[in-house]
């Protein structure tokens, strides 16, 4: 075992422990903000695993998308609606917990069998270190993975259109004047914004 292999094994061990503890923390901690931050730890450790697998582009993309975008959005959502609230007692919580445990164990068993069944032993020559992973990825995207790739982009487009429709309030018709008797002097009545044409965008900058 030379230096590189030793470093790989040690870092794999560290990353595995980090993933497991952080993932358990995400599920088990009662403070939701701590869970969200630990999720970032899970994502970071997974990108470390990708690095160990020589997938440098995927590792960087993992950090950029999962840590930089998804996790930040989750944190935003938590912090914008962060309302300290105790969990109310639910009747039959024991049964629910047992059911959850059974489902989780089932999933774990499924994954476990998958791990055991899959032939992991690869031919030692075939996973030839790809010189430039980006080019290889691009070739796969535009040949054998073209359909999933395009479907994913359509899905993202749909999500974006949906978000824009939700965010644009000017499609909602004007609320009739009868309702504003409730508004007090301290609250501003929320009016739909006027349609902003392309012409006056320049004034905003």
């Amino acid at each position, binding site marked *: 075992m*030379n*230096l590189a292999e030793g470093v790989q094994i040690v870092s794999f061990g560290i990353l595995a422990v980090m993933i497991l503890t952080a993932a358990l923390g995400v599920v088990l901690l009662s403070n939701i*903000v*701590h869970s969200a*931050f630990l999720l*970032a730890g899970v994502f*970071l450790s997974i990108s470390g695993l990708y690095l160990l697998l020589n997938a*440098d*582009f995927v590792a*960087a*993309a993992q*950090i*950029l998308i999962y*840590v*930089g*975008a998804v*996790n*930040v959005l989750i*944190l*935003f959502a938590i*912090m*914008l609606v962060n309302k300290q609230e105790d969990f109310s007692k639910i009747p039959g919580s024991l049964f629910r917990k047992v059911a959850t445990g059974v489902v989780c164990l089932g999933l774990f068993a499924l994954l476990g069998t998958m791990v055991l069944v899959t032939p992991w032993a690869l031919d030692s020559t075939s996973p030839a270190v790809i010189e*430039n*992973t*980006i080019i290889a990825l691009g070739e796969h995207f535009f040949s054998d993975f073209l359909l999933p790739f395009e479907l994913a982009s359509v899905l993202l487009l749909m999500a974006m259109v949906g978000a824009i429709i939700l965010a644009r309030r000017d499609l909602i018709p004007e609320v009739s004047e009868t309702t504003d008797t409730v508004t007090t002097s301290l609250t501003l009545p929320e009016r739909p914004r006027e349609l902003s044409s392309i012409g006056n*965008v320049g004034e*905003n*900058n």
Partner: protein
Amino acid sequence: MNSGIDLQGSFIETLRGFGLSPGLAKTIWLPLPMLLMIIGATVGVLVVVWLERKISAAAQQRIGPEYAGPLGVLQPVADGIKLVFKEDVIPGKSDPWLFTLGPVLVVVPVFLSYLIVPFGQNLNITDLNVGIFLWIALSSIAPIGLLMSGYASNNKYSLLGGLRAAAQSISYEIPLALAVLAIAMMSNSLSTVDIVEQQSGYGILGWNVWRQPVGFIIFWISALAECERLPFDLPEAEEELVAGYQTEYAGMKFALFYLGSYINLVLSALVFAVLYLGGWEFIVPLDHLADWIGVSETTPWLQVLTGSLGIIMTLVKAYFLVFLAILLRWTVPRVRIDQLLDLGWKFLLPVSLANLLLTAALKLAFPVAFGG
């Protein structure tokens, strides 16, 4: 292709000459460039802090730091020592773990990003295939740290500052990445060394500024926003938010934030120099000059000369950009948060998309000039 000095090779050769095994020699070599980079980055920060104070003073017709060392060059050192000795205050009812982890998460990715900055053909830590993409990815970790410290401080201003920082950071990452993408498209690679190689050969005329004037401006605006420099320093706007996410921090933790923001500025300037100003390239192509005089490329003194000139050129370009940033700081007033997001989403994003499209079209039309 692989001209320039090979420090690693010669270092290992020397150690083997002393009778060490190659593996051991390599192990001794490994931490050296990293250590050098960390020290270099810290010294770079000290220089930038001094420059910032001196240039700000000059722009306001003041003198600036004067008594700590000649021309006040030791002032940042004095500031740093003061911060080290200050009490480490953790406010009551805060979240001590997140409060401590926040500054670390802000600083470490920035230091890591120095991995990809090349100062010469072989004068970098690693020449990664994903180079510039790694920088973009790592810089997206910082908002998590900012949110963390903003939340953990248990302070309204901190929370608002943290949220603003994160919002600003993710909005401006997109035009930044698109501007970088146009460059990557032209040089057919994300590696910083390849990007500089692609600009070499024609001296100042070959630099990407001339091919990407729009991308140049977009990148600079987005980089300023990413660094939270003055036209876009809303997360720490002292008139509205006290100091944003740094409000509750003191001592060494505050110093980490301070260090992080200035390292980020230097790093952005360095990356900017690499992407648009030809990295370590001199104003005139040195290879041709050497050929013309009749000196071989492998002559040791020429290699040392080009190597040191490369480092100097990279630093000169980077510090010129830092100078511009400081001048901008005293010229442009701070934007409002809605103006900031308007500029990011409604101006920079479409313009950078159009720039990307134009670059692709030009690359197809003129493969000679825009990288075939």
